[in-house]
């Protein structure tokens, strides 16, 4: 069965630190990859997505993610985090032969001012 792994469950950073959140998936076919963010008390919002083309994807608020097919990974990065980035981040995958999302377990990011 398909699965998505987020290895970092809780990350604490100081402002201006660099961020990288890991995401690995288990599916050998063509995938669409997503990162969603959930700010405290708010609903899920799309941060960025990869469908095809350039494996380095840029999203909103300075986030980017790189799709490395050989590693089945889609890690999220941001060079310098801000306090307002405090949120929970979810990686999700949708494959070409299954019509639903698989979500990772989420990573809670706490940015200290």
């Amino acid at each position, binding site marked *: 069965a398909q699965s998505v792994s987020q290895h970092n469950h809780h990350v604490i950073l100081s402002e201006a630190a660099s961020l990288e959140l890991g995401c690995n998936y288990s599916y050998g076919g063509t995938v669409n990859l997503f990162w*969603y963010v959930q700010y405290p008390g708010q*609903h899920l919002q799309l941060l960025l997505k990869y469908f095809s083309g350039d494996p380095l994807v840029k999203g909103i608020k300075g986030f980017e993610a790189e799709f490395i097919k050989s590693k089945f990974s889609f890690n999220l990065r941001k060079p310098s985090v801000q306090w307002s980035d405090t949120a929970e981040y979810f990686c*999700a995958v949708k494959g070409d032969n299954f019509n639903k*999302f698989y979500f990772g377990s989420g990573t809670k990011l706490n940015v200290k001012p």
Partner: protein
Amino acid sequence: SAVISQKPSRDICQRGTSLTIQCQVDSQVTMMFWYRQQPGQSLTLIATANQGSEATYESGFVIDKFPISRPNLTFSTLTVSNMSPEDSSIYLCSVEDLGDGYTFGSGTRLTVV
């Protein structure tokens, strides 16, 4: 992208009762999805609702516990039946936004006492 209105936003219910959650989309969509996000966990797909046919339930979820209606292409309801404290969770509806992944409603935070 689609805009989803979900209500109620939260509720506290007595065990043994039922709660119906409504999801309204501002555009016609073929499929609507219902997810559960239990405390500290990721999102789990409950079922996929197609207009004019019975919902398709994921493993571990049954129609008697989570009946779903889909009367038209912009509306769906999920009922949580005969509730127990284990049903305390956030319930979300979602639709696929072609090219944008999935859009989520703001969620219904259910507490069963």
